């Protein structure tokens, strides 16, 4: 039952985040690049002021699967690195991006080689 409730919360908050993005798209005609950067920075700010972990405890994947989660892991890495030294403090944030970036770039490369573009059909 508790697991089920977790999914309901993830759905509600995740949906809400996307709905806010849609409001910005409708009202300001922002392109997806700007939307993604804006929500990434929102995640960075929320993590930096310490609010992110409370939202994460409540919503789980509802806040970590949107790009806000990516922003949060960057700041988490930076915080972890700062305990070790200056070099680690400025590089560990990027280290936390490594998994996602590697996956996106590798699969982007792979699928672009294998599949033909569909953009003309739409």
């Amino acid at each position, binding site marked *: 039952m508790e*697991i089920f409730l*977790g*999914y309901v919360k*993830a*759905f*509600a908050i*995740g*949906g*809400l*985040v*996307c*709905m806010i*993005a*849609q*409001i910005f*798209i*409708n009202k300001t005609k922002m392109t*997806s*690049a700007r*939307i*993604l*950067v804006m929500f*990434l920075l929102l995640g*960075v700010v929320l993590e*930096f002021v310490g609010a992110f972990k409370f939202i994460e405890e409540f919503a789980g*994947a*509802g806040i*970590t*699967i*949107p*790009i806000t*989660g*990516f*922003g949060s892991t*960057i*700041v988490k890495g*930076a*915080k972890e*690195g*700062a305990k070790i*030294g200056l070099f680690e*403090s*400025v*590089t560990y*944030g*990027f280290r936390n991006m490594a*998994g*996602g970036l590697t996956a*996106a*770039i590798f*699969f*982007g*490369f792979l*699928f*672009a080689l*294998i*599949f*033909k*573009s569909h953009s003309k059909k*739409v």
Partner: protein
Amino acid sequence: MEDKQYMDYIHTHAQKSSHVTTLVWAFLVGGLICCVGQAFGDIFKVLLPNWEQSKISALVSMTMIFLGSFLTAIGVYDKIGIHAGGGSIVPITGFANSVVSPAMEFNKEGIVLGMMAKMFVIAGPIIVAGTVSSVVTGFIYWIVELIR
């Protein structure tokens, strides 16, 4: 002048009805994608009990990016995106879509200057924003640690 008024009329009224619809679509699709991510998180926690939480979440992101990339490659993700808008852009699968979609489209202009370069048309700003925030917050945390 009358034509212009008529166009304004159509524009405002059409916008109103489609505005609510796009919000509902964004909510439903965005919520659903987050639930898929939640499910992968729960599954990986059972399958990999001795992995730490940060590694599990990175693995979930990578899995979602794989799914987003694959659905983009077979042409499904863009079809979802027509209705879902923000619901398909903001989740991490949308980031994957923003990498794979231009990579596929510009592949015909050559591997190096087409695919590899244009892959970052949308992802580039995200990587720059992420890297700059990483350095800035890291430096602030470092100074805070020094003062302590």
